[in-house]
């Protein structure tokens, strides 16, 4: 007769958890990714070659890294619109300051790290201590950072850094067993993903989720909310910087490099089931979603969708991928209690 279950310390069986997980938006993205990958292999069998596939993965690394950075910020309840501006600034910095002098690589990279720290800190402090909504604060810093970058370069920077520096985005390790060719960028990506997974299981990561869920409670629990969120912004700025280093290697200096990345990243993170407003979502789902988007774009190229239609297809996919599960979920949602209200 008793229907309430008393508290048990046991977890549900792994399989049941996986099954349930796949039905959440964060899980469904893996299914979508799998489908897209099948499509990709069908249209371009040459990608079935591990080396080719690793190259493919490698060139998606920058956007995946950016999505990773954006994940930290979104999960903590904020949003970072400054990523593209940071990428542009860092790319220009690398191009202009390193130039053809390999001995300058280390000091310039340190300078880039410093810039990331400053911008991340600024974003964080503005949103937390000065309570400027992150949408506005990061939009503002983006305007400032890119304004200064383009002012300093007259509007159209050019000039690539020395080839040895670009190796990280272009080169790789050849003749690796199984894989054949492993681009350095995939290694960077793998390391960052593992770090992110570890970080999210550490107290910092758990508290970041808690902040996104209820910042007041987190503050009263003795956490320093401003510093948690600010660290998320700093991580995001560092992610942009690493993406910039890979990008300047891969593609070279250009005023448009990285443009629009933050929107793809935000889309990916949300597609990965991370809730705008924070408190929910798995980092791997966000990465998977970013990868799925990249696979989709390539697939469109392979299928031969007219290039001007590509943004439209992208828009449709985003809306369908988000809308269909939502249509299914809203019926269940409306049964649950008030959805987590924003903490005002």
């Amino acid at each position, binding site marked *: 007769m008793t229907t309430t279950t008393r508290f048990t310390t046991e977890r549900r069986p792994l399989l049941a958890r996986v099954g349930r997980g796949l039905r959440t938006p964060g899980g469904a993205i893996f299914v979508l990714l799998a489908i897209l990958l099948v499509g990709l292999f069908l249209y371009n069998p040459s990608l079935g070659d591990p080396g080719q596939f690793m190259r493919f993965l490698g060139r998606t690394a920058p956007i995946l890294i950016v999505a990773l950075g954006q994940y930290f910020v979104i999960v903590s309840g904020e949003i970072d619109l400054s990523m593209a501006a940071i990428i542009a600034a860092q790319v220009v910095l690398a191009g202009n300051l390193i130039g053809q002098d390999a001995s300058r690589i280390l000091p310039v990279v340190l300078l880039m790290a410093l810039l990331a720290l400053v911008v991340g800190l600024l974003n964080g402090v*503005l949103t937390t201590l*000065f*309570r*400027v*909504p992150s*949408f*506005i*604060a990061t*939009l*503002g*810093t*983006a*305007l*400032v950072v*890119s*304004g*200064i970058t*383009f*002012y300093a370069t007259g*509007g159209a920077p050019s000039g690539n850094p020395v080839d040895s520096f670009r190796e990280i985005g272009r080169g790789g390790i050849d003749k690796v067993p199984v894989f054949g060719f492993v681009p350095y960028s995939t290694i960077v990506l793998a390391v960052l993903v593992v770090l992110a997974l570890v970080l999210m299981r550490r107290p910092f990561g758990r508290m970041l989720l808690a902040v996104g869920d209820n910042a007041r409670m987190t503050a009263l629990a003795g956490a320093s909310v401003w510093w948690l969120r600010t660290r998320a912004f700093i991580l995001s700025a560092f992610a942009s910087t690493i993406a910039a280093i890979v990008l300047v290697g891969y593609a070279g200096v250009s005023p448009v490099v990285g443009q629009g990345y933050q*929107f793809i990243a*935000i*889309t990916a993170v*949300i597609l990965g089931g991370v809730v*705008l407003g924070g408190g929910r979502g798995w980092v791997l789902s966000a990465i998977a979603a970013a990868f799925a988007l990249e696979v989709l774009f390539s697939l469109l190229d392979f299928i031969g969708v*007219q290039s*001007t*239609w*590509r*943004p*439209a*297809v*992208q*828009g*449709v996919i*985003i*809306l369908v991928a*988000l*809308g269909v599960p*939502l*249509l299914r979920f*809203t019926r269940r*949602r409306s049964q649950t209690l*008030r*959805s987590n*209200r*924003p903490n*005002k």
Partner: protein
Amino acid sequence: MNGRTAAVRRTLGSTTATVYAIFVVVAIAGAILAATAGSAFFTEGNLESLLTATTVLGLVAIGQTLVVLLGSLDLSVPFVVSLSSVLAAGVMLGSADNLVAGILTAVVASTLIGLVNGLLVGLVKINGFIATLGIGLIVSGYLFTNYQGSTGQASPQLVAFGGLTLGFVPVTTILMFACLAIVMVLLTRTRTGMHVFAVGGDPEVARMSGVRNAVPVIVAHALSGLFAGLAGLVVVARLGVGSPQVGSQGGYDLLSIAAVVLGGAVLAGGRGSLWGSLGGILIFATIDSILGILQVNPYLKDVVRGVIIIVAVAVYARRSVPRRPARFGGGAR
């Protein structure tokens, strides 16, 4: 009575008042700076330019204000502006007879796109940021596939209308104010308008109180589309042709959101005002105008804009800290 004085006090101390205070400061500073540069700020010519610059962004921002009040966003506006411009110019083809058809096509198409945004946000419950981003991408795909550069030709009446001024005030600016007034009535004197605030404030509370949340969401988004469409028509009137890029060139998405926030609206929804948004736009336009007169590098303009947005919003945030009334004086230990 008590309520009224309280209301007055609230208005005076409100964010909107701060917005206009900032505007006045900026304008005066601008006049002084312009004078030191050997130019005048308050010339009819410059004021006309300034008002013209307010009009298109102003129309877009009216819609954006509605949507932000609701707790959503509209990132599709630049593409709707462009779409409206190419449709209108494409239908008119420079002929006086096609004026009405052109206007209708543009307005209906824009409103429909807003409506689709509204349906996605209000019924399917996709986050406004994503829904309007997606629709914006779809519209941009349509535009870039079907239009290569400027297209069509505005009908002569429309061009004449675009150039009409009353003194130094462009008639299109007056049109923008008329729209502002209508939306003001909508927000304060109709149920749907009041429900925009309610749904933006707390959708769950609104629902529990018997509000059909989808209605204000759909109406606000549809209106945002409509006003973006009108902005597109003003663009056609000014340029004489339609352009598939003109909306994205103007950066109307982020700029209108920034203006609305600069006007004191809260992105989470429920708080903000049309007057505030107008003030936000005036501030932007004034700064642009001053920096233009001073021949400041356009990239430094962005820097100034960025700083102004951040500082202004930080000031509002400071002011709106809810404080419990203190019972005892301070006195450090």
